């Protein structure tokens, strides 16, 4: 784990402990992905509406706290603001709101929506002959939703090579509808698919920089709660639960 990604995880824990909210394990699984995306794409934290910026959509909207802490790390706002996470009149809801948080491009939450919007943005860039790119993270659980696959049909049909979708393969659906071989599914739809260790920032960056001739899918193999043994061993009980003070100290220790 890189020092930056460790620091982001600590800020996620702190915000969750202070606010009493948070889907921490699912946020921990996407820290490196988010970090790699924001390290790769064109954006300007001091000017979130930069005209020719690339765009990122968090389709798995319940990873909001992870996104907030990464945006804070990159300088969009001070990390302390996120401590109001989920609180009354806070800008930082448990699902992201594009009208409240700088750097958030689409309000998401209900699963299977952000990916359709991302497809439309990529299509808009094509119409405008723009070189701008679109990145989106979808979850493996989210991919139970049919709308994800509808969006893939459209993205492939329109050869949206400016759209890169990172599939957070954190095995969240082991107890229900698991997609056992996601790469084969996306390949079957005609996407350009690669698979990497989703906690290896350099590997992710390399994949994000590669060109493809159609929509690119990066299957990022991740671990829910990565970095904390407590989360990994008790995923379901920690799905949506903030740590108390003692648990927070323990989790910080586990992160090392």
């Amino acid at each position, binding site marked *: 784990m890189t020092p930056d990604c460790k620091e982001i995880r600590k800020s996620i824990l702190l915000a969750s402990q202070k606010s009493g909210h948070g889907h921490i394990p699912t946020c921990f699984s996407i820290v490196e992905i988010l970090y790699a995306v924001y390290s790769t794409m064109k954006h300007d934290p001091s000017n979130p509406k930069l005209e020719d910026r690339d765009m990122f959509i968090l389709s798995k909207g319940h990873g909001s706290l992870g996104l907030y802490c990464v945006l804070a790390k990159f300088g969009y706002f001070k990390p302390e603001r996120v401590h109001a996470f989920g609180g009354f009149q806070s800008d930082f809801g448990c699902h992201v709101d*594009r*009208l409240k948080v700088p750097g958030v*491009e*689409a*309000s*998401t*939450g*209900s699963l*299977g*929506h952000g*990916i*359709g*919007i*991302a*497809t*439309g*943005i*990529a*299509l*808009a*860039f094509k*119409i*405008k002959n723009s070189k701008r790119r679109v990145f989106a993270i979808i979850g493996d659980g989210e991919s139970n939703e*049919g*709308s994800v696959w*509808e*969006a893939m*049909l*459209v993205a492939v*049909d*329109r050869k949206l090579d400016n759209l890169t979708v990172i599939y957070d393969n954190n095995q969240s659906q082991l107890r229900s509808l698991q997609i056992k071989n996601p790469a084969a599914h996306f390949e079957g739809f005609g996407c350009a698919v690669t698979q990497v260790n989703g906690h290896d920032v350099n590997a992710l960056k390399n994949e994000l920089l590669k060109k493809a001739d159609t929509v690119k899918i990066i299957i990022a193999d991740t671990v829910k709660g990565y970095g904390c043994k407590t989360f990994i061993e008790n995923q379901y009980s920690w799905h949506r639960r903030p740590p108390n003070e003692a648990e927070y100290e323990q989790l910080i220790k586990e992160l090392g």
Partner: protein
Amino acid sequence: MRKQFSLTVADLAAKDDRIVVILGDISVFLFNDFKEKFPNRFFNLGICENAIIGAAAGLSSQGFIPFVHTIAPFFVDRSYEHLKLDACYNQFPINIVTCGASFDYAWDGPSHHCYGDLATLRLLPGMQVFQPGSPKEIDALIRSQYNIGKSNYFRLADKPHDLNISIESGKALILQDKNADATIMTAGPLIANVLEACRDLNVNIVYFNTIKPIDKAVVSQFKHTRILVIHDAFGFYEAVSEIPNLNIAYHGLPADTFLCSYGSVPQIRKLIGLDSEGIRNTVLRTFGDKLQELPSIKNAL
């Protein structure tokens, strides 16, 4: 009306390069000209309504003005959450144009009916709802509303009225004011049946093609009268009823049942009492000495 929709959008697109058209694989032949003139702003994305609404929202986020088009139940019923979140909550406005609402596809049965579109869509913040009754009305409504920064729902009808009436966009039109103490309010093509049924009766008649925002001022002009809403969908009556202190009743679709009879639009209208004869009988009965219960027609459906 569908042809007028395509002509109006093509005309606007020639002057406004933000306009894009997305079809759900219907009315394709009507957009051949549009496709030829604006190939990079025409998309027949197929039968994937959820993806269409999402993509339209994404296009809207980048400054385009999308028109999306398919059959009413597929956008409204299937993709309601996408309309709610992708377009309305995100404030990425789009124009939704449907055909086949109410029982326009009477022969196809309930899978292709949509009586609830006006009722459910008017609940979405930022969504305007229109039921034009004629090609002239859809032309005027699209031109006046398509780029005002809100999502718009335009419900096309297979059988428009052929009345020579002019209604200002967003307003209600008093077609008959007899200073009577009884008023009929209706919307969309059914106005033709209402006029045929009631022209010689001592009732006021008010016509709407904008369901949201409803013209409260005109409704309020008739609040001292007894009002009967005659309509072939849900939502219009509810919109009028929200204006306080009205003495109001509804004649139209039976509650809590599917229309399972096949046939034509006139046949279904007759079945549920929305043909001219049925409307006249209901109006005479309703505005008798007291407001009477309508006879149940559930058994006939």
